[in-house]
């Protein structure tokens, strides 16, 4: 098992096909409206006037496949009134269903929409990093399914050493809030964190 499990996204390779999302739904047998992994489309652009009076557009778009980042300082764990939300011995942020009261307070706080409410169970659910697969030595379902190998997983330090730790692009939130175990190789069009140049284009999908 990993000590500090992390996900890595190569945004340049991601085509936004959402196979990871589907593989996750399939693996976890998720009901409608519950998603442990979401592929967000972030896009924007405008017309700009050239010196000669002609106009040019700078339309851009890119994808971010995000699940739970099993943060170092998870706001869901901090806020959970019951201690049902906790970080287990393998660094995986987990919901203990024997304690969860279904108050959805973790959902209010998490800037990655990781905790999801399952109305049938009246409890919160989330990505568990495919713990069972890891124990069998297999990769998480989303990583295994990615057709472009844009999604990887591993030990945070190793991924950070290989790809660099401080790439935060819009619309990801300031990482100092929760310390996400997420490594990103930015797309050539990626806008910096906090940028207002684009917006999430598929809210009904994520």
């Amino acid at each position: 098992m990993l000590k500090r499990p992390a996900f890595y996204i190569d945004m340049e390779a991601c085509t936004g096909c959402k196979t990871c999302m589907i593989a996750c739904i399939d693996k976890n047998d998720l009901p409608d409206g519950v998603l442990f992994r979401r592929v967000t489309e972030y896009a924007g652009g405008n017309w700009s006037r050239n010196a000669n009076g002609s106009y040019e557009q700078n339309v851009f778009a890119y994808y971010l496949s995000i699940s739970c980042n099993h943060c170092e300082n998870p706001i869901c764990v901090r806020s959970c009134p019951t201690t049902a939300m906790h970080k287990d011995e393998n660094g995986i942020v987990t919901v203990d269903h024997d304690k969860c009261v279904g108050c959805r307070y973790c959902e209010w706080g998490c800037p990655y929409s990781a905790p999801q409410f399952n109305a049938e169970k009246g409890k919160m659910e989330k990505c568990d990093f495919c713990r069972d697969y890891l124990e069998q030595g297999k990769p998480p379902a989303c990583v295994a399914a990615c057709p472009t190998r844009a999604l990887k997983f591993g030990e945070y330090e190793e991924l950070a050493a290989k790809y660099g730790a401080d790439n935060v692009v819009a619309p990801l939130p300031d990482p100092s809030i929760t310390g996400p175990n997420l490594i990103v190789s930015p797309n050539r069009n990626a806008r910096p964190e906090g940028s207002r140049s684009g917006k999430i284009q598929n809210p009904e999908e994520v």
Partner: protein
Amino acid sequence: MVFNEWSLVLFTVLAQTAVGMLLVSEIARKTASGPVGAVLSRQLPAVGVLTAAALLLSLSHLGTPLHSVFTILNAGSSWLSREILAMGGFFAAVVALAVVRRRNPEAEATGLAVLTMLLGLVAVYVMSRVYMLVTVPVWDSVSTMLGFYGTALVAGSIAGGLLFGIQSNRDASLAGETRSRIAGVFILAALLGLGLKFVGVPLEMIALDSMNGLDVSGLAMLASDGTVLLVARMVLTFLGTAVFAWAAFRVVVSHENGVMINAGLCAFGLVLAGEIMGRLIFYGTYLRIGM
């Protein structure tokens, strides 16, 4: 705008009303120049009933209410745990104070009364902090706290003042001077609460100006059909407080009690409508950073 938090709207408004009623009625009791007799005797039981109703209503927000006993386990870091503990502590103190006063109606029980008031103040503070999440900039503002304390004082003094109007109407033995002083405390508390709410309005507008990843701000959410609601809720609360202050002022100057009941009922209805509308807007403009 999505209005799906009715249980939390009612829980917060009723709980704050109960806290305000307790604070104002205890201050009125201390301020009264002579013996108050039984004229404030129904305040504590009413506070207890309101708090119990609020706590029961909050259960309907939960997906698995049977697990609610676990919600106090994370008081070390969760403001929600602290809220439940604070409200529970306030309720226990109200019940204890009510029992003491019932056994001996002359008992002041000042120590217990002060403790209950402090627990009430703490409960509203903690309740505000629950919403002041770093990832929810529309709520993470001092306006949340001003709004909550404002609701406590406005709705609490009008509910308490109405009850006082009903009880004092039946009690001809109450000295005019005492009557005036008690009514005066209720007026001042309601006006202070209204002041807090209105100081909070510009700060709330600043907080509502923050945006999420969809490039939508809280103000934009309110821009279409919400503007009417936003204005209506302020007008309702203002009108309710004005009607109440006018009626209670009649008691202060002419010791004339009758008007307190009808006007008090009317004022309470207006303020309750305004506060519930305001709280629906509060939950309806939930907006979080990130994705």
